[in-house]
């Protein structure tokens, strides 16, 4: 394999590994921009992955699986909303609790329903989202450099991948060009301004967390019925937290969120590639070092090496009218 082939292969897997991060980070973007911290992204993703796998298995239709994932994820969002918006509870505690609920419930239900140790049954080919071949692949195949990139990186992904990238400009447009977006950003900065303008803070924040649930549904479905063909216990494996880190790294802006997710995806892909390979001049390096890279980077980023990240000012603070 020459270096270019290696690059193409790593880029291809970068895309695949970035997608769940991207959906999840965009979900966090909507929630946190509205002032609701969401550490429960991880749990929502996991619950959605489980629900998608179950429904896709039962119905044989990936779209119904996706819908199921979205529904379950939105239910989780509403619980988070009920705790933190309606009852003004601590948003971190509520999110962590939901993560535990998701981790436990998926295993228990999975075991009860399918008796495969928490796994769901393997999906048949058409019950999951399969790779799509974009037009022109045959023509492009022989073009030097661009050809392999087009064929192996841009083409050949499943529909959710393309939706994820489409969601980036769409999120930007919603946040910065619509009335809903203006109000959502305002409520995350100064809910008092929204309230005195005669807009319901509660309803606005509920809508924001529902959007977050909707997007997490996609990331869960991607894990279990696009990237894999079954739900495996704990398959989100901390991606929800990495997505949060990407969100902070990107300073709560949609387009930088995409690049941050791609960066984390790339590190992950690189770690996979380095398994069992010798580093020139050093020799074989334990693969754990590469696997730790995304987490090390997260620590470095969160410790403030990216300059000060200003979260939405009212983030994490329940809104109470003051006397």
């Amino acid at each position, binding site marked *: 394999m020459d270096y270019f082939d290696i690059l193409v292969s790593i880029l291809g897997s970068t895309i695949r590994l970035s997608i769940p991060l991207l959906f999840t980070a965009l979900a966090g973007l909507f929630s946190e921009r509205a002032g609701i911290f969401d550490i429960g992204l991880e749990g929502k993703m996991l619950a959605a992955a489980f629900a998608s796998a179950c429904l896709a298995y039962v119905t044989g239709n990936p779209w119904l699986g996706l819908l199921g994932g979205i529904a379950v994820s939105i239910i989780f969002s509403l619980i988070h909303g009920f705790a933190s918006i309606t009852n003004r509870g601590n948003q971190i505690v509520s999110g962590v609790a939901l993560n535990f609920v998701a981790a436990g419930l998926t295993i228990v239900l999975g075991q009860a329903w399918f008796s495969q140790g928490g796994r769901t049954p393997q999906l048949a080919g058409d019950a999951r989202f399969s790779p799509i071949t974009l037009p022109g692949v045959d023509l492009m195949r022989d073009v030097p450099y661009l050809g392999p990139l087009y064929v192996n990186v841009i083409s050949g992904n499943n529909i959710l991948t393309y939706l994820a990238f489409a969601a980036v400009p769409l999120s930007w447009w919603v946040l910065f060009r*619509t009335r809903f*977006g203006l109000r959502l950003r305002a409520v995350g900065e*100064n809910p008092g*301004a929204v309230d*005195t303008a*005669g807009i319901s803070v509660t309803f606005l924040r509920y809508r924001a967390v529902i959007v977050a649930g909707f997007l997490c549904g996609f990331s869960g479905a991607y894990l279990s019925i696009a990237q894999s063909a079954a739900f495996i216990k704990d398959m989100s494996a901390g991606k929800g937290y990495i997505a949060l880190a990407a969100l902070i790294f990107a300073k709560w802006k949609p387009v930088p969120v995409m690049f941050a997710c791609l960066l984390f995806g790339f590190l992950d892909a690189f770690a996979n590639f380095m398994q069992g390979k010798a580093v020139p001049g050093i020799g074989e390096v334990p693969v754990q070092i590469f696997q730790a890279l995304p987490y090390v980077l997260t620590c470095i980023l969160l410790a403030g090496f990216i300059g000060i990240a200003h979260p939405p000012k009212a983030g994490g603070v329940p809104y109470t009218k003051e*006397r």
Partner: protein
Amino acid sequence: MAVSVIRPLHVRRPEKERQRRVSQHPAIELVGIDKSFGTVHANKNINLKVEKGTIHGIIGENGAGKSTLMSILYGFYQADRGEIRIDGKPLTIRDSQAAIAAGIGMVHQHFMLVENFTVLENIMLGAEGGQLLAKGVAGARKELKRLETDYGLDVDPDAVIEDLPVGKQQRVEILKALYRSADILILDEPTGVLTPAEADHLFKVLKVLRDQGKTVILITHKLREIMAITDDVSVMRRGEMVATRKTAETTVEELAELMVGRRVLLRVEKGEPRPGKVLMSVKNLTVKDSRGVTMVDDVSFEVREGEIVGIAGVAGNGQSELLEAIAGIRKPASGEILLDGQPIAGADPARLRALGLAHIPEDRHHMGLVLKFEEYENAVLGYHRDPRYGKGGLLDLKAIRAEAAEKIEKYDIRPPNPRLKTANFSGGNQQKIVVAREIERDPKALIIGQPTRGVDIGAIEFIHRRIVEMRDAGKAILVVSVELDEIRSLSDRILVMFAGKVVGEKTAEAGEQTLGLMMAGIAA
């Protein structure tokens, strides 16, 4: 989301406005408004009439119920009983949206602005004129332009709020209300954050608004403002509306008495100062803030025994950093501070206390008190190492509580309960807790930031008297306040700070205008 009922007014509604002028109903009539929060009876059977096209002042001490009453009018709270009539018609105001629809606009004490939004975005928020922003923007710009020419309220629509000075931010709040075609404008303590010049400008704007037929309600606790600008004034005390007067037919003294319920001394009574030797001196002091910006720039002055030196200035001109540097909270970048001949620059607060320097901080909530502590705990905060209060790491609670009870009695702190959580005391009483703690240690020098911010008139009088007593006992006192009246009535000498420098020194007799110009950096 319910579709916004607010119609951004891009065209005037001449017909409606004419009708309004013709009808002779009061703009607002409140009948028997009553509101309780738990056991607190915030508004008791309030009756109020505000005539159209007037500026109506509502005055009262902190906690008198002014803000609650206005929050009811603006739909933030529902009254338990009573009726609101707007233009003669009874109206239920369920939420702010209903208030806005009824033509009521409010400028809050703490601005309700999104700081990282532009002026235009803030004004459009809640009245965007459609699902997509692009649609409303052109109309909003046009309307802003019209408001600018009609009322002389110019602001750059594309400026970001956090980059604007407070005076301009307030203007945006007023524009927000006018943009929603408010006929009645409520302003809650609008001058608290303004320079004297900005306040004057605000008053001019309010007069223009009145002359154009708008009704203005001004909530304040500053008597001077009431006299300067209102047509009528209503006084609230302990949740009741105790009187309404024509401003021209009343006096400051009468209003003060109505507010407090007894005669109060508005001027600080003090004799001639008898300054002794120099006790505190600051030499070429430079202080930087956490971002490295120079906030205090090569400042030198002295404070003698038995005198009060006041530092006047608009908030944010380095006074806070100066205080913090002297109090040992912030390390100066360069320069010297001497207390009784000893260099103290960079010493920590505990050592400064031991040397006889007491500090009443500007912000009692952030620095002076731990609000969740009980009163007696705060009464010894910072002096807890004193052997009188315990030995070997254990506190002698009995001794501490006994002393706290003594101070409560001496300073008339209410309610007189050392076991009450500090957050449950009123602003004035909280300030008295801090004042008692610092003064009763009998320090040699006392530095005070905002001695009476958010404190009611009765407590102001008390605290001022204590400070003068300290002076007469030969202490050196440095007072920083953004209230020019307070500086003028307390100080024996006045230093004015602007942009980190002391731009001049005046005697207490200096006129308000002279000082005001110096504070704005115009004259020295």
